[in-house]
């Protein structure tokens, strides 16, 4: 006989899980609730109910311009991260690259390094050799912090590919690039998508690297939100945050629908 878990423990478990869920979701709930406020000020609980801050955000040239800037930076960073990270992930996971462990550690170091340190380093390098802060500097900075994610996700999928599949393709006359293009890459698809999605989000969301590397006049969305919070906090900040959350959820649903991101194992 399996003895039942004592009632006390079950209640305790439910309490802990509920606390964790609340802790994780509460900030989101606060932000979303505040965004519908009719008040002038960023306060919780919200006073009144209105969509005025959404109208405000969507008709504000500052917000739209910053969103546009963040978006195209994120698109370029994502493209570069996938282009560079995919072959790196495959190579590290599947082939005996000499010193693979060291390469892995090097590629993944931005994951553990404090972003502030990275920001300072990048700023010094760019100031000395590449003409100081610029869009280009931000893109390179984002690439450094996004690349590990793509390498990780692609590598995780690439490890699972049947090694014999490549050998079989080889015996069927496939040259190295044909094996890579037709056999290995398609099987890494879920890893590439997941990595690309993470890269886009991280770049779009980053404030620290951009803060170090932006030239005057460059305004990304996270930087704008920071600035607003500091100097004129109003519920438009909450509205734009809510829009970002909604957009992220939509992207996840779309990826799930079209590519079955949840079926990573397949």
């Amino acid at each position, binding site marked *: 006989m399996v003895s039942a878990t004592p009632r006390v423990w079950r209640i305790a478990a439910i309490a802990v899980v509920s606390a964790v869920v609340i802790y994780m979701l509460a900030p989101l709930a606060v932000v979303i609730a505040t965004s519908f406020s009719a008040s002038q000020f960023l306060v919780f609980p919200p006073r009144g109910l209105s969509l005025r801050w959404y109208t405000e955000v969507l008709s504000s040239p500052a917000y739209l311009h910053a969103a546009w800037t963040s978006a195209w930076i994120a698109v370029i960073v994502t493209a570069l991260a996938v282009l560079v990270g995919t072959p790196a992930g495959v190579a590290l996971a599947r082939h005996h690259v000499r010193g693979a462990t060291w390469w892995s550690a090097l590629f993944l170091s931005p994951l553990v390094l404090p972003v502030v340190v990275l920001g300072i380093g990048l700023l010094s390098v760019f100031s000395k050799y590449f003409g100081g802060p610029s869009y280009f500097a931000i893109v390179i900075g984002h690439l450094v912090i996004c690349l590990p994610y793509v390498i990780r996700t692609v590598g995780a999928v690439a490890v699972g590919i049947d090694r014999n599949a490549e050998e079989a*393709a080889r015996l069927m006359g496939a040259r190295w690039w044909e094996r890579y293009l037709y056999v290995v890459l398609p099987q890494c698809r879920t890893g590439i998508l997941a990595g690309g999605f993470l890269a886009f989000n991280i770049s779009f969301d980053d404030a620290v690297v951009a803060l170090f590397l932006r030239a005057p006049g460059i305004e990304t969305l996270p930087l704008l939100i920071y600035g607003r919070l500091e100097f004129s906090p109003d519920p438009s900040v909450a509205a734009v945050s809510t829009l970002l959350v909604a957009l992220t959820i939509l992207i996840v649903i779309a990826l799930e629908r079209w590519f079955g991101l949840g079926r990573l194992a397949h």
Partner: protein
Amino acid sequence: MASVSLSNITKRFGAVSALDGVSLDIADGELVALLGPSGCGKTTLLRVLAGLEMPDGGSIMVDGRIITNVAPEARRVGMMFQSYALFPHMSVAQNLAFPLRMRRVPMREHASRVEQALGLVRLEGFGARHPHQLSGGQQQRVALARALIDEPRVLLLDEPLSNLDAKLREQMQVELIELRAKLRLTTVLVTHDQHEAMSLADRIALMRDGRIEQVGTPRELYESPATPFAADFIGAANLLPIELEANDTEIWAARLPAGTAITVTAPDDRRAGARQLVLRMEDLTLTSDPAQWDVALPIRLGAAVYRGSHVRQRVHHEALAITVDVPKAAHAQASCATHVAWRRRDARVI
């Protein structure tokens, strides 16, 4: 179609010698099975033949041309992997068309050749499925069809049936035999299963520790094993240590460890001294009438295992344990047997 000649192939992995001077000639259209326990080098030899491993020494010839340094993609060898190595992201038809695509076969031929290959392995109508939608047996057939579709010169099969359950395995064995009768393709098969090797192969190359222990037809290996290892690996056999005395006739005297005197047929090499006597389990009879037999030893009966078509009976002569396969019809009488007996020509000195 092609003849294959391997001469003096060696391959080391670090300090381990995987192949140690292997030579083997395979005739055009012949099926040779590389048989042996795991780690004997049989798969390495197959991979060397495919070009997936570079041998450290020796040469490989196909149709009289040395191909030792030819890249695997240019060898025109079809290989079926133990894992099948199907491409999971492609449909069955796309899997089959892949070799045609890579070899730049004109597109208009693809559909008909894929259809033909599916027919060959009796999978008509499965072209649109994906590998994960197929059973193990069906995947195995797709892998076979894919290895065959581009008309390779040599077909290599790495443990082709080991991932199937027992019933399916037997069915696929029959299908492989029928398919081969149709194609007459030079084939090398790797297996650790002696029954598979015996039922499929024209010749068996028995391997051990990176060397070929014995090559011959299944009948030769079974009936005239050259070494104790061969006798023991191919079909279970009793190996009795004997002390052999030479004379001028064809019948020699021998002594078992317990001192019992028996007679044996003189070995081909006519060498006396410490030898071994190979006794197949099914060649032994339990009897209570020893006078009728060339050789008979008094015994005590031991444990018996019921095997359906026969009973595997353990008997003891002094300290010597001997295993006898008794046909099920004869087992009732065997329970009061006093002797184990055999015909002299069924016992072989090695």
